[in-house]
């Protein structure tokens, strides 16, 4: 009897603690979500109230007047192009590292892989110079190239460990069936590696969607800004208009939330891939 009561007490305490931490972890987003639907006047009067009328029109205003439509479009273009390029060339390299033996294989893999720990500062100034010299500074193409280079190591790392686990008989069978190495990559490696590919696609999408440092260094034109840059600019311009800023934040958050709702496990897998040993 006593033990079960004690257990229940302990249990109850635990549940309360967990609920509190949940409020702490997720509360700020719920708060922003509620603010994004309220006007600045309403917020100033009572910052922590729930919205009484849902001002969805604020999103339309932010989208057009706040130029968020442009920022959003830029983010989509840059992120999707970078992820597409990353997936293809990352998978090709990973396939190669995993499936063939050749001189300097380990050395090259180590070279690429070790950049995971490099601080971005070590490349960013020279990258700026290089892009300026080649007329790619302040272009979305330049930013895409920088992003591809930035995310390449983790992409190759995740994919390589997956490709290495595919039985080599599968490749030999395809060779006997008459396929060239290149066709085998497209028709065997890629389809079989779909789970790992989707992990890297989702991971790269989220990380690049949120990226700020490369964007702030490599993009200056307002009409080429990605969402994080746009938000930063908006914050500088209109520090007082908290309501509209919250709406802007929400525009950046919603796609992430949507991806998380549908692919939470994949996303967690991708984010933690580098840390699990």
């Amino acid at each position, binding site marked *: 009897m006593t033990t079960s009561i004690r257990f229940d007490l302990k249990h109850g305490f635990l549940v309360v603690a967990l609920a509190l931490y949940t409020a702490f972890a997720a509360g700020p987003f719920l708060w922003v979500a509620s603010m994004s639907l309220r006007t600045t006047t309403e917020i100033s009067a009572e910052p922590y109230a729930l919205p009484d009328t849902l001002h969805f029109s604020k999103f339309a205003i932010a989208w057009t007047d706040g130029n968020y439509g442009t920022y959003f479009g830029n983010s989509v273009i840059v992120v999707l192009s970078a992820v597409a390029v990353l997936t293809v*060339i990352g998978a*090709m390299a990973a396939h190669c590292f995993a499936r063939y033996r050749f001189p300097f294989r380990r050395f090259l893999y180590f070279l690429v892989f070790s950049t995971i720990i490099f*601080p971005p*500062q*070590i*490349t960013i*100034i020279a990258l700026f110079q290089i892009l300026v010299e080649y007329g790619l500074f302040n272009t979305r193409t330049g930013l895409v190239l920088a992003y591809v280079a930035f995310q390449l190591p983790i992409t190759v790392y995740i994919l390589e460990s997956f490709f290495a686990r595919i039985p080599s008989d599968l490749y030999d069978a395809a060779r006997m069936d008459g396929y060239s190495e290149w066709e085998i990559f497209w028709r065997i490696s890629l389809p079989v590696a779909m789970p790992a590919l989707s992990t890297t696609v989702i991971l790269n999408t989220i990380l690049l969607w949120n990226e700020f440092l490369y964007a702030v260094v490599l993009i200056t034109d307002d009409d080429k800004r990605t969402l994080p840059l746009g*938000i930063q600019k908006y914050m500088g311009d209109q520090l007082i208009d908290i309501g509209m800023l919250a709406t802007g934040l929400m525009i950046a958050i919603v796609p992430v939330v949507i991806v*998380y709702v549908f692919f939470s496990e994949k996303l967690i897998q991708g984010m933690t891939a580098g840390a699990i040993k």
Partner: protein
Amino acid sequence: MEHTAGRLTSSEPGLGLRPVGAIAGFLAPALIIYFAFTAYPVVRTIWNSFFQVFPNRPDEFVGWANYATLLFEDRFFHRAVGNTLVWALISPVVEIAIALLLALALYARVPGSRFFRLAWFTPVLMSYVVVGIIWTWIFNFDWGIANGMLRAVGLDHWAQAWLGHPDTALPSLIFVTTWMWAGFNMVVLLAAMHSLPSEVLEAAELDNCGWMAKLRYIVIPLVRPTILNLMVLSFVGKMRVFDLVWITTRGGPLWSTETVSTYVYKRAFNWNTFDLGYPCAIATIWFVVVLGGVLILTGLLRSRDKLEY
């Protein structure tokens, strides 16, 4: 890292079948990107660090002058190094300690643990820009909820502009990154704990082993490799922290939150000093420090492993 894969390609010279063309074709795009946009910039940054690099003017060789200045004269740099090191040394410990507690709570299979796990992971999914703005509001003196809660429990005199005061700004930002990353670390630790043989913990349960003892003698030693990885990851992450500071305080007030990254950015792109050589010297030094730190960290934790087993 050794696989039995790729048998097609043993290294006999002069015999066909080794798909040299295919190997080159697969690697070329990635290596071109790597050498053009990672390796070359790294080398060029290091090269730059021995020059004064002004736009529209030939670079001027200055030898070790940049390094001398920043090592012996630049007080801002010293301040930035101090702040960053504090951040990078405190954060891993605090984040992982909290993450361990959270992971243990969920390891006991409380109802709804799946939901908790998903909810706690969310902060890390958000851009530092979003997080930074939200937390400037939370720390706001007049209407931020941080002060609101202090006032609600009668601690009015503790209420302050958390990010506006040199003594509290850095701790507040460390608090924010902890909020962001604790859930992430928790998820990784939980995965590691779930992959442990469950008999071990059950045996400890039967031995009536205390909660703390269980943690200390069973769980932590077994997930040590994971903890090591997380520590390195957290360390590296804090050594490069930029976005959060830039959005919230821009290094202020009074340099109290200046990090090496923000300082490099300021010297390269923000102050109108125009010289790119000096920030390259900072970046180079920091690059060496980060690599060294990672080596020391892995070495330290590894050698402890060796001593114990």
